[in-house]
């Protein structure tokens, strides 16, 4: 089993589980407490298990244009954007963050998809003059998230954090470590994801000292809170809510498809998906009282099956069960009443827009 550079902390303070081949903390104290620390203050996550791949070379930008449905050339250096790797049928190979730096593109991919993604990227690379380098094991990645994330992180870095806007990044340092800091995350909250370039699995000392310094200012959070936070925010999880059998339109991710863009892997299929009404759509369901889990049947009030859940949790913030799932398009209207079959008993719920929380009160768009 693989370990991240911060394994010693997790083993000493957390409950460990296997995730994508890594021994990772599922929680340190309690999923609820960690979850609410992120919604109300700040939390830190070891996300070093995620894959980090650098694409560089003379053809880097034309290659990215071939690889991605999102235009890379129109993005200024400094942008960090969410996009998808698609197969030739328009199915989703992975959802990724692309960090467009001065000299190269740094791709952050899902841990479980790292090998598959690199193989796909190399296949597409073909005749392009690009260098593809997996830097996962040589780096450490820490996310700090929450309304107080900026305040917690600022004393440790020379970067002027408020100047780094949402979905942009800066090259800077944290403590003594050279890093790429991107104002993104997977919780719905404001914050940064920090890639430390001088500390990996072979030399974890710099990463450990950054983590320790952050841990005095923000709550260490495990994968349990990471999952409940991303569900509340309505963010899809690869392998659960999206995979190679889902397309970006039905997954409600069509906003990543740059308008008018052609010539990328999967574009013929995407054109067809765009011009055909989708059969099913990804939706959020808030339950009256029961807790939905992945793989539960969704029915209308007469008991007719209209879909299936792909993620479910109890929301520590809303104190309700939440599900993400696919519902047949004619039945998928927001505000509609549905039932989710919880271990044999049909239980009431309502289709709502995501994020599930009030985005004026929580999340990075909060206004109060």
């Amino acid at each position, binding site marked *: 089993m693989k370990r991240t550079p911060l394994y010693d902390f997790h083993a000493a303070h957390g409950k460990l589980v296997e995730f994508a081949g890594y021994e990772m903390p599922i929680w340190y104290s309690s999923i609820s407490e960690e979850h609410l620390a992120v919604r109300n203050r700040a939390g830190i996550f070891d996300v070093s298990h995620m894959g980090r791949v650098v694409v560089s070379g003379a053809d880097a930008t034309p290659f990215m244009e071939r690889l991605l449905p999102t235009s890379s050339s129109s993005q200024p250096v400094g942008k960090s954007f969410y996009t998808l790797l698609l197969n030739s049928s328009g199915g989703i190979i992975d959802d990724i963050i692309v960090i467009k730096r001065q000299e190269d593109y740094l791709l952050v991919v899902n841990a479980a998809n790292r090998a598959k993604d690199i193989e796909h990227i190399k296949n597409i690379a073909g005749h392009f003059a690009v260098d593809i380098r997996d830097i996962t094991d040589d780096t450490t990645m820490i996310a700090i998230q929450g309304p107080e994330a900026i305040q917690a992180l600022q004393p440790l870095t020379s970067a002027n954090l408020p100047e780094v806007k949402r979905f942009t990044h800066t090259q800077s340092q944290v403590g003594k470590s050279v890093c790429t800091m991107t104002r993104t995350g997977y919780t719905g909250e404001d914050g940064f994801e920090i890639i430390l370039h001088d500390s990996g699995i072979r030399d974890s000392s710099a990463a450990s000292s950054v983590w320790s310094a952050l841990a005095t200012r923000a709550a260490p959070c495990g994968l349990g809170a990471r999952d409940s936070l991303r569900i509340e925010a309505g963010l899809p999880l690869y392998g659960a809510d999206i995979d190679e059998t889902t397309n970006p339109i039905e997954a409600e991710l069509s906003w990543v498809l740059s308008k008018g863009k052609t010539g990328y892997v999967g574009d013929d299929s995407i054109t067809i998906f765009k011009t055909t009404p989708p059969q099913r759509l990804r939706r959020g369901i808030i339950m009256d009282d029961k807790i939905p889990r992945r793989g539960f049947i969704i029915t209308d009030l007469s008991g007719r099956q209209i879909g299936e859940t792909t993620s479910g949790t109890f929301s*520590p913030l809303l104190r309700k069960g939440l599900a993400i799932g696919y519902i047949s398009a004619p039945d998928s209207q927001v505000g509609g009443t549905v039932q989710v079959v919880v271990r044999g008993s049909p239980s009431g719920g309502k289709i709502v827009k995501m994020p599930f929380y009030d985005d004026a009160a929580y999340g990075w768009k909060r206004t109060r």
Partner: protein
Amino acid sequence: MTESHSFPVDLLYTKEHEWTRIEGFTAQVGITEYAAKTLNDVVYVSLPSIGAKLKQLGTFGTIESIKAVSELYSPLSGTVRKVNSELLTHPELVNKSPYGEGWIIEIEISNLAAEKPALLDHSQYSAFVASIGKQ
């Protein structure tokens, strides 16, 4: 994480991580501290109806944490006489006090002598938990 658990000596246990406190013909039932810690935050407990007949090691409800759902198994056969309805509004009592305020049901038992050998005492249960930790 260094885990420490407490398993009171006056209780009997199942390999499904329930405990029972037997007093005469009444057996109080809950889940062990180990189970409560493993589930982490208990957020929902479904309770049986009063009068429901339970079989030894048959299921009588479910307990849910933020991430997962587990079945509850009755340590002994009997009839449900009381349920802890506090858990409907305060399921976290299972975490806070698994052997006290976090009790789940009380059953009237009838066949203790025949069924008791299937249960573990505190030392057998703590050895069982230690063996899970080593897997």
